[in-house]
């Protein structure tokens, strides 16, 4: 129990509640999309039906890189990135010098090396346009910046992070019985008391997680629009490129004379052996020049919290150094910086930590919406303004999952003509608009039930849609060692059942009551 003077306790209660009123729905939006985005890789495997369990960068990539470099104009050979893309594929991104008018080429190849998609244009326009990975990319994009243009989107999600920090710290301070609340849930108590127990229980368990998410989330969101410009102004005279050079290490001395390209397959194999994990991302700077460098970013090795970064000579393929996440040598700042990503994305222990992060994300969503409902439970009947917020809470809390399910429906419907990038966004917007219309048109008591049923039905429709779009069935996926597909279907059907259970029971009870009452008398 935390003993606070009465005035401070009341003030913190007011801050806790009013911050939820002001920013609770934004916070819920960022939390709910983040909870889904944690499983972005698995959603990518599930939606594309990828059956090759091997990481794409453990397959031969050298010939693909050479062909992509040979086909590209010399100006676009400044840097080449190789990463996994949808449907077991590999994405090769060629870029010219960084800047607002940076141009590039993105090539996606299948497991057999065949070119599936090729896009050329401004880097900002072609990035993230992989049709196969559109669903996962769209869900991550909402979480990261809510598709608000420019850096402003990062500021908005950063404000959500600070709101979470405020709610978690004030919630911790006003907790009367921290330990008791960990185990108190009176399910048979009156609905308001049970709701308060649920809020306290989920909030107490999720408290450390909420603090970690708030700090790491605000770190990521504010770094680009606020942190880097401020630090560059103080330490590098406003030159952000110099700041990134300090973080990522200086490039080798420029030498544009032509040279051979190192055997990338040998480099990737050596990096995998040294890191104890498969390469996740490879960057080749200046391929075909004497100053070429290959940087291999490996997956996180089991038992480690941070992944390895290995640097090779881009001409001879000789191993040069093992670099920390940032900086020239291990240091306090580098360690703290390196911890941010695994703690925010929850991928440090593979699927187990991702599932734990997803569960805690659900807890935080439940605490946010539950807390808002507690705040509104009496006020909504007294004043129209509170009633509107109560209605908005239902529309956002249940409409956002409906819209995300709608994006999945849009993705599978757009697979046939390869327009998934557009159809995924359209599916999200249409489902979101339907939730909004329901929020305006329906009577308050019916609103939650209708949105719950709509979300449940949309989620239940996703596995059949995936199969209809040519996705593999469970037996094929399990035989190929890809449990993500069956797991994804089962999770969606489980969620659908959970959402449809209560309205279905109410419908059955209403039918039963009507049958008992008999036919209406004339």
């Amino acid at each position: 129990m935390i003993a606070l003077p009465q005035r401070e306790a009341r003030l913190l209660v007011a801050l806790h509640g009013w911050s939820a009123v002001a920013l609770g729905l934004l916070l819920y939006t960022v939390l709910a999309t983040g909870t889904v985005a944690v499983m972005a890789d698995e959603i990518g495997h599930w939606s594309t039906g990828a059956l090759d369990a091997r990481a794409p960068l453990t397959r031969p990539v050298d010939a693909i890189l050479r062909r992509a470099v040979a086909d590209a104009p010399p100006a676009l050979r400044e840097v080449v990135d190789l990463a996994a893309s949808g449907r077991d594929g590999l994405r090769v991104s060629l870029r010219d010098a960084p800047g607002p008018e940076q141009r590039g080429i993105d090539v996606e190849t299948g497991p057999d090396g065949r070119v599936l998609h090729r896009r050329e244009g401004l880097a900002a326009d072609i990035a993230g346009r992989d049709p196969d990975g559109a669903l996962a990319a769209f869900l991550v994009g909402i979480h990261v910046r809510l598709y608000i243009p420019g850096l402003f989107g990062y500021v908005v999600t950063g404000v959500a992070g600070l709101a979470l920090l405020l709610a978690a710290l004030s919630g911790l301070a006003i907790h009367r019985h921290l330990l008791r609340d960990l185990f108190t849930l009176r399910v048979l108590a009156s609905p308001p008391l049970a709701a308060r127990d649920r809020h306290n229980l989920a909030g107490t368990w999720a408290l450390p997680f909420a603090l970690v998410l708030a700090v790491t989330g605000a770190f990521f969101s504010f770094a680009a629009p606020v942190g880097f410009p401020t630090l560059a102004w103080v330490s590098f005279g406003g030159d952000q490129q110099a700041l990134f050079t300090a973080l990522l290490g200086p490039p080798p001395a420029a030498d544009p004379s032509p040279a051979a390209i190192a055997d990338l397959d040998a480099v990737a194999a050596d990096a995998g052996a040294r890191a104890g994990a498969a390469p996740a991302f490879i960057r080749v700077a200046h391929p075909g020049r004497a100053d070429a460098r290959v940087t291999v970013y490996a997956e996180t090795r089991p038992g480690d919290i941070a992944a390895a970064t290995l640097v090779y000579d881009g001409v001879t393929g000789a191993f040069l150094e093992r670099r920390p996440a940032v900086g020239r040598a291990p240091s306090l700042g580098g360690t703290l910086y390196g911890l941010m990503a695994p703690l925010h994305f929850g991928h440090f222990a593979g699927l187990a930590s991702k599932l734990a992060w997803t569960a805690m994300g659900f807890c935080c969503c439940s605490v946010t919406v539950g807390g808002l409902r507690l705040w509104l439970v009496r006020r909504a009947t007294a004043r129209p303004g509170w009633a509107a917020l109560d209605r908005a809470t239902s529309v956002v809390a249940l409409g956002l999952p409906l819209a995300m399910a709608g994006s999945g429906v849009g993705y599978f419907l757009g697979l046939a003509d390869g327009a998934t990038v557009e159809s995924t966004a359209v599916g999200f917007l249409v489902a979101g608009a339907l939730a909004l219309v329901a929020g305006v048109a329906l009577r308050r008591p019916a609103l939650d039930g209708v949105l719950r049923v709509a979300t449940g039905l949309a989620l239940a429709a996703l596995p059949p849609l995936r199969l209809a779009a040519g996705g593999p069935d469970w037996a094929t996926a399990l035989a190929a060692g890809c449990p993500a597909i069956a797991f994804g279907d089962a999770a969606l059907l489980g969620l659908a059942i959970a959402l449809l259970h209560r309205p279905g029971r109410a419908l059955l009870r209403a039918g039963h009551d009507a049958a008992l009452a008999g036919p209406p008398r004339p």
Partner: protein
Amino acid sequence: MSTFPIIPSRPVAAPGRSLFGRGGSALARVALAGPGAALTTLGVVAALAAVLPPGPGGVDAIAVPLVALPLVWAAAFFHACLDRSPRRAAWVALALWTLCGVAVALDRVPPPATVVR
């Protein structure tokens, strides 16, 4: 007594008086906790970048202020809200700003030229 002791369903302050103080002081507190806390955070982050040593990796002065940003904001925000005297909260913020300004200014002033005999 309220059914919800944790999240009360009616205003917690006495009628006619805000928890944040009367009229002007409430406004000062809102200004301190909102834009004031944001500016204090920027100032402290800039000052940390100026005073921290680069460390063996050469990145401590970049990474530590970035990681500290949300925590600095939380400290500035809660101090602005919880200090019983908004005047004192304002003085503390101003002092912190001055300190940060001096630290950044000293860091940006070029070292005096070496006198060659």
